[in-house]
């Protein structure tokens, strides 16, 4: 290639990159305070889980802002605020391990939050436990998985409900509102949900439901018409979308193929996401374990307003879960009156009565001893939002299961 041609390409590429950089959005500055508690955030910010990962992270940041505006938490008469240091866990164990090592050993972080995938949770906990650092895992896609809380993980708590806790609530709600619906089809991503499906089978059998089909779709699927074609062959009365961030597309495909029965989504996707993405006209007989973001309480309203102001983007409901996670950590630190991670763990274990902890969802507690052998799981109210004819008919909060 001639020298002139090379120069021409370089000039065009530089001009293009420069133009694109000029029109892109710059990242916001991170607020700093004099007395700070560093919080390590290890969420996926790239890859297929980037959207919920970023939403959780933004929830942490918003709570840190709120705490700063409130003057901070008081420990032995001294005020502290949070500084969130975020690292991209990329949804991979190796990346999470490296990021956790950096946060713990280079940044000196004593409190780490993050997860979303089991291998990431295992990798992060192994670093935190060794260093005596508190680890608040954000999720359990597969409750009871070796990565989940257990008595042999003294520094790990899980700051979210089990997704399978929603099953009992959803089945109860279905029985009350759609008593004629007895045949259920499950749609779940193929990322190891078998234990959850097994538990769901037991729960449905106890409540006289039949599971007529289980369809596991490939992680990353965008076209759900073939998936729903298979599901509808079994002629279910109800479709149950198990912890999927793409439940809205599943609903769309099912409705386009002629399914008119109740559709349950137990992911935290808000009704607004369904309305915006697939349109209100197909949002009927829709039951979602999400908060109502339209008519809501003051805490959630504050999270939404701050989100829209800070990031200028549409609110994603996972942000509320991130907010709750850091909020309950703040409450446990205040309860412990110490920044020693072990004392904070002890404080968490003592907060077992409903109302000991406050969350955006309502009064909460730490629980899980019966199932996991240790009270290391945040038990908070479970929302059930019912959409009928494209409108939110009701949102019920089922109280947290506490002692």
């Amino acid at each position, binding site marked *: *290639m001639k020298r002139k*041609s090379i120069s021409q*390409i370089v000039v065009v*590429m530089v001009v293009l*990159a420069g133009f*694109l950089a000029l029109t892109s959005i710059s990242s916001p500055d991170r607020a700093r305070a004099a007395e700070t508690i560093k919080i390590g955030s290890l969420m996926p910010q790239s890859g297929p889980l980037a959207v919920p990962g970023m939403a959780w992270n933004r929830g942490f940041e918003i709570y840190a802002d709120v705490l700063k505006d409130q003057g901070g938490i008081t420990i032995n008469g001294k005020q502290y605020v949070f500084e969130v240091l975020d690292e991209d866990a990329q949804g991979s164990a190796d990346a999470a391990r490296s990021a956790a090592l950096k946060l713990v050993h280079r940044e000196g972080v004593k409190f780490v939050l993050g997860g979303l995938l089991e291998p990431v949770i295992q990798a992060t906990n192994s670093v935190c436990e060794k260093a005596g650092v508190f680890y608040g895992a954000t999720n359990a896609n597969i409750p009871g998985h070796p990565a989940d809380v257990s008595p042999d993980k003294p520094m790990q708590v899980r700051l979210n409900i089990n997704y399978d806790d929603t099953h009992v609530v959803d089945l109860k709600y279905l029985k009350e509102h759609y008593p004629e619906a007895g045949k259920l089809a499950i749609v779940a991503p193929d990322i190891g949900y078998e234990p959850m499906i097994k538990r769901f089978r037991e729960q449905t059998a106890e409540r006289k439901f039949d599971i007529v089909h289980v369809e596991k779709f490939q992680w990353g699927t965008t076209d759900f018409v*073939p998936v729903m*074609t298979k599901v509808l062959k079994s002629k279910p009365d109800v479709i149950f979308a198990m912890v999927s961030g793409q439940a809205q597309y599943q609903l769309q495909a099912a409705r*386009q193929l*002629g399914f008119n029965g109740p559709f349950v989504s137990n992911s935290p996707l808000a009704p607004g996401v369904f309305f915006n993405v697939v349109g209100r006209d197909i949002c009927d007989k829709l039951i979602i374990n999400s908060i109502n973001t339209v008519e809501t309480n003051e805490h959630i309203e504050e999270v939404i307003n701050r989100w829209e102001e800070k990031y200028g983007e549409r609110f994603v409901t996972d942000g509320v879960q991130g907010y709750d996670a850091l909020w309950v950590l703040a409450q446990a630190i205040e309860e412990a009156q110490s920044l020693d991670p072990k004392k904070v763990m002890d404080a968490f274990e003592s907060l077992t009565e409903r109302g000991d902890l406050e969350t955006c969802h309502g009064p909460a507690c730490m629980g899980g001893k019966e199932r996991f052998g240790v009270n290391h799981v945040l038990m908070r109210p479970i929302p059930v939002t019912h959409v009928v004819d494209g409108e939110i008919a009701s949102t019920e909060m089922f109280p947290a299961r506490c002692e």
Partner: protein
Amino acid sequence: METSLSFVLQAIANGLAMGGLYILVALGLTLILSIMGILQLAHGEIYMIGAYLVYYLTSSLGISLYIAILISMGAMGLIGLVLERGIFRPCKGDFLSVITVAIALTLILRSYAVAQFGLFERTVPKLASGSLVFFGVAVPKDRFVAMLIAAAMSVALYLFLKMTRYGQAMFACAQNPEGARLRGINPDLISPMAMMIGCALAAAGGAIAGSIWMLTPTMGTLPLVKGLIIIVIGGMGSLSGAIVAGIFLGLMDGIIPVFFGPVVTSIAPLVIVVLILLVKPQGLFGHG
């Protein structure tokens, strides 16, 4: 038996709609490959940017979807002209340079989309809502419309190539560039035209896909892979091959997932490509 038949028909209907989208991407890719002799690996990003442009036009300026698709096609066609003149023409004939600049372009455009629109999914208005029922088989209206648009564009491209002087010149350049030159056809005039048409078709494909599913900065990867598979199956540079292979691949993507699990669904197209290459290395419609 009735259930089984409607089940199969449903799968075929799903597949035909998918095939329409694949054809739009593959036609552009194969046009660029056959006339310019370059593998445009950033074609998926043109598809993605075309879709985001429609998102911007519909959500921020309130322009109707179909007008926005036409504007996006025009805009991406012009970008294709700039890319051909500024980036690809100087690299012509140097395989490594083409691949390098195409990958660089991919990274720049994808990073731009992440920075400008974020990772959160965006949506554009639906092409149509509801379903049509043919012989007891429900076909989503948006996919039916997508299929019609793809068919109309394919026919328009075919007529342009067959019936117009420029189209004939493009054919000549694709089949024998030296022969075309001897007949007085200037490939430097034809190449930008191929790039413009290719980019416009990609923009249309992206906008339609965005209307059926969602917009993400990585949405161009899968169509690019499908487009490359179609080119290999149909034959390098063959437009009719791209159409047949697009329908074939769409049918496979519609039918296989409803009879088999996700593993078979993901590997089946690749197995078929290998088999076709073993039996007919130049592809179904390729010349030896």
